[in-house]
């Protein structure tokens, strides 16, 4: 319902409250955005310094971006990142989707027990050393599949997806069953098409998860050519020889570091608005069932 905005006596209190709310939220937004603004501004500022804050660059330059993007040795890591993020997300959605759907079926034997066992892995994580041993024993050391498979099912996202599937009225599935549809047919022809918002939301989570992989690349991958963008950018910008490798010392490190941060988050920033509509709906729907 639209509230009337007016300073007439009967609406005055309400209008002042709206103004206060707007101001308060604007200030909160500004505070939350400050670190982001600093990173963005410093990435374009040739005079960037860690302890100085500016709303606009003192000396505007895109040199830091050009310097990073002109590194041919970043192309392969970029492709590796794209490969693990896309294949990993698709695989994770397929596996999580099947499992989440199975867990919504009331006739699944041991459904509650399976769900409890899954929940246990949320609370007690084995840690990196057992994971390393599993990867090694599967012969996946130095393979990008080690990264992809290690995250193919994330418990939290699985539960979120199961909750989302649970919101689909059972009656629709029952109608399909009466019409002779098999459970797998119901999954592909009814559940999945109705679950686009949920899949989009979980998909975005997985993309971010895979895109941001850093430590597991360091641990599982040995060959430099198989490293992802995050690892290479960190090496290029923060390591001891970085500035020389980047072609000189005429740029402040802050400018380069901030440009790296922006370039790192850019793919997700581009992807997010495209999926935002589904994303918000997906999260809301998944959250109402327990």
């Amino acid at each position, binding site marked *: 319902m639209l509230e009337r905005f007016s300073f007439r006596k009967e609406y005055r209190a309400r209008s002042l409250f709206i103004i206060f709310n707007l101001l308060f939220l604007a200030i909160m937004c500004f505070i939350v955005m400050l670190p982001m603004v600093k990173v963005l501004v410093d990435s374009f500022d040739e005079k960037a310094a860690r302890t100085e804050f500016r709303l606009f660059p003192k000396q505007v330059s895109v040199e830091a971006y050009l310097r990073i993007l002109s590194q041919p040795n970043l192309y392969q890591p970029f492709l590796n990142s794209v490969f693990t993020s896309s294949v990993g997300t698709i695989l994770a959605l397929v596996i999580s989707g099947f499992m989440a759907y199975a867990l919504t079926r009331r006739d699944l034997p041991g459904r509650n027990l399976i769900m409890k066992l899954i929940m246990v892995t949320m609370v007690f994580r084995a840690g990196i050393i057992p994971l390393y041993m599993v990867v090694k024993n599967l012969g996946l050391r130095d393979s990008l599949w080690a990264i992809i498979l290690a995250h193919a099912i994330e418990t939290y996202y699985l539960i979120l997806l199961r909750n989302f599937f649970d919101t689909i009225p059972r009656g629709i599935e029952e109608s399909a069953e009466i019409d002779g549809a098999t459970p797998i047919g119901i999954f592909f022809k009814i559940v999945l098409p109705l679950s686009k918002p949920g899949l989009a939301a979980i998909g975005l989570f997985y993309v971010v998860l895979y895109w941001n992989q850093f430590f597991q690349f360091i641990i599982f991958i040995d060959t430099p050519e198989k490293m992802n963008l995050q690892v290479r950018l960190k090496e290029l910008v*923060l*390591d001891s020889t970085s500035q020389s490798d980047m072609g000189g010392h005429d740029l402040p490190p802050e400018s380069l570091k901030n440009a790296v941060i922006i370039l790192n988050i850019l793919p997700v920033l581009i992807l997010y608005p495209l999926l935002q509509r589904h994303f918000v709906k997906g999260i809301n729907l998944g959250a109402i069932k327990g």
Partner: protein
Amino acid sequence: MKKISIILIFFVMLPFFIFAEGQDEDIVTPTAPIPKIKAVLDVVVKVHDDQAAWAAKYKKLTGIELEILQPTHNKYEEKLKIMIAGGDIPDIFETMPTFASLYAKEGAAVALDGFIAANPNLASVPKRLLDSYRSQDGKLYFFPLQLGGGCVGYIRKDWLDKLGLSIPTTYDELVNVMEAFTKRDPDGDGQANTYGYSATLMGDGIFQDMYNRNIMLDAKGNFFVKNGKWVDGFAQPEMKEALARWQKLYKAGIIDPEIFTNQTSDMREKFFQGRTGIVEYWVASWAFKMQRDTHAASGPNAVVKPFAPVKGAKYLDRLARVFCISTKTKNPKAVFDNWIGLMWDQGPGQELFVYGVEGIHHKKLGGNKVEFLPSPANPKIRLSKIYVEEFYQINDGDIRSKQDAITDEATRIWQKNSEPLSLEAGGDVYNRYIGEIHNLRLEIFSKVTKGDMSPDEGMREYIRKSKNFQVDQMIRELGGK
């Protein structure tokens, strides 16, 4: 970070406990041919600088195939620990002396005394050098990659000349120079955008003593050996004086205000770009880079000059990275002879470890001179080291490269004006609390320097709070009790 490392070390040791076969450390196994050595190395020549050619030359010299794993530098120790904990145990690995002593304590590293004594190539290695790596049980479980190395002060000589000043020899002169560098526009751009001195005090989450000797003078923030006994440097009277100096300099605005957050790369870049006129940084191949990169960023007229410590200060000689030979290795003596023995043969082996492969990493100039070649990865940059730093060789190698004057000068200043650090290897209490102690030191240092408390108050608070971390027991453990 440190805490995580120590927890990891515990897990690292599990495979050794589980699969331990026992070893008599005094038995020297005869050298037998081995087909392959699996090595985990950090600072060896990079893959993109033709590591393959380096390994091929190694095979040509020894007949042994070399499998090198070189994790990314900034996560090297974590990966090594996880590998070992996961049962992926190399024959030989490079690590920091502090971690090496933990591996040794848990029986993961072979004692090397017998191998050293039996290897003629190591006869000329100074006993004093090896003693500084000796464990509390009197044995050597790890061998240094090279001499430790250290930092010296670098100053912008062109700024000094412009302002009519000379290289400072006392602390007061140094303060005058800092003040002039900050307030008298040494770069002549008409802006107040320079500082006298930059440093890092807190790099990598530990209190750093290496990069600030000219202000710390005789004080050290870490544990060190004073008159033959381990002491907590931060609780010593000279630390109070040092804190007072930092506070005064910070208040005067003549030091870089980012000393609390600077990493070593930050302060280095600030020097290159002419945002500060003095830093303390590494010698040897870094001296050359200090000059080269300052020229690149600030122009060819920038003159970089290494300088001796001001009166009352000494530069530090840290312990080097070390090699451990794993107790899981089938033939440790063969690994020792074909790696550490070969490194110091004063012949082709040493040439390989110091200068790399002829035609790829260096060229011969005639006589016993060599010259490093441009990096295969980036031909614009000349290589300055392959593995062992030329100036940090532990014996007198036959060969010398054509070095720049600044490398020679900086290294000589450091050799003449440095004091050695001791191996900081404590026990359980030390390992449990060292992270907290570092945090406490950093906290007190920041508060005092920024003027939130006086040096007296800072010292009192440190002494009071450090007792909670059993600092006395930590010191006893460092002394072997």
